[in-house]
């Protein structure tokens, strides 16, 4: 399994033709206390860079974009009951949705962990 990152602070862990998506630890630490998360419906069609989910901190609402195009396998229903999972385990239990990739070549434009770390260090 390989994990990629976007400049919008999403992570995507790819396992064959499917993948899990969430926001990074850096993103949650900067957003602060997460009080609401809205995940996409199963079978929703997402386009790379399009709106996929919404995350709301005490202060503001932010869009989570789809890092790649594809079809939603499932959203993380646990976030509805406990949105703070995004704070406590952003790159694990706090995932947002799983997706079937429609074009794996879209992954080529994403960053690997080292490149994302360098990107964040430069912010």
């Amino acid at each position: 399994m390989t994990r990629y990152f976007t400049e919008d602070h999403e992570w995507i862990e790819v396992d064959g033709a499917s993948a899990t998506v969430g926001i990074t630890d850096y993103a949650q630490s900067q957003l602060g206390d997460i009080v609401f998360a809205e995940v996409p419906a199963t079978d929703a069609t997402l386009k790379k860079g399009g709106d996929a989910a919404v995350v709301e901190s005490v202060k503001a609402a932010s869009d989570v974009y789809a890092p790649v195009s594809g079809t939603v396998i499932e959203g993380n229903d646990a976030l509805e009951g406990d949105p703070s999972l995004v704070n406590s385990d952003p790159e694990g239990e706090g995932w947002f949705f799983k997706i079937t990739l429609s074009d794996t070549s879209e992954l080529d434009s994403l960053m690997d962990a080292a490149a994302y770390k360098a990107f964040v260090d430069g912010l």
Partner: protein
Amino acid sequence: MRQPASVAATLERTDMSEEDEFELEPIEILELPLDAWHREKGARIVEFAGYHMPIQYEGIMAEHIWTRENAGLFDVSHMGQLMLTGDGAAEALEAMVPGDISALKEGKMRYSLLLDEDGGVLDDMMITAVPMGLYVVVNGAVKWDDMGYLREHLPDEITINHMDDRALLALQGPKAVDALKRVVPGVDALYFMEAGSFFWGPKTDPEPLWISRSGYTGEDGFEISVPAAHAKALADQICAQPEVKPIGLGARDSLRLEAGLPLYGHDMNPEFDPVEASAAFAVSKRRRAEGGFFGSDRILNALANGPARKLVGLSVEGKLPVREGAPVFAGDTQVGVITSGGFAPSVGAPIAMGYIDAGHNAIGSTLEAEVRGKRVSVTVSSLPFVPHHYHRKGAHT
């Protein structure tokens, strides 16, 4: 209404200037006396009211709860501290504020509103009668406009001194009195909305501080005007008390929203008069009888006949925060708009305030707010959302 931005855009947004619609774009973002102190304490800094200000230290939720249970120190030095001096200052000011300012006794303070010539609200403010004249604290985002407006409308013999050489700290929370009386003996003698001068520091070289028992969180607490040169030493000493942590603007906003206190530029603006803004209490009895202030015809008419729309509290069903700008509907008809909203840490649910048309704004009315195309059930509720805990004279608590 602000649509959600990307996570990256939210993180890059170091300014909160959409909150300051009435402010011109500042040429330069200014630093407050405690700027370095906030950074040392680990604050995240944003732009607010033309200044770099701390939005949070350890997190808005934790800071909010800490303030409700202990005591939080807020730097509100961006606010304008004005001294009006000269014979007849109170009577002259009454032309543009609806409160009974001339009856204000020395050491007593009052919440009031600066009115435009049509009775719209230009700012809300705290006015204290002091030996020199009137000490007036106005909102940071509009302080320059306020000063210009006051200068234009006050007679020349009234002097306006902008005390920009002073910082303003607010210590808020049920344990604020325990902490502050150790640092500044005697402050516990003040009751809510009273103020006085207190000595602080070594007996050989004490510094006078102007301290009031007031604040904007709904909790007991104090506001302390201190010369900028001494602000750091005072903040250090207050924060050394075990009850006290520094608290950022984020928690200040959620605390005041739970307390049902309006935020100027959001819940109040020149479009609305004091009655619409649910601040009719700021129109004093004598002023209602006599009139003679800016917009008094409009305001007295609204008092007599009820306002066409009114600022109310709204409890929100479910967990989705309803934020500023969201339209509010009764069926298919828009009957209002949200002016402040968010998650309320002490309530454990989203809450909001907004202007709702007459006929739909009675307590208990059920309406729907629209968030990202979805309808969310909201109910007009009494304010505050969290009871006030002021140290009132004559109260038993």
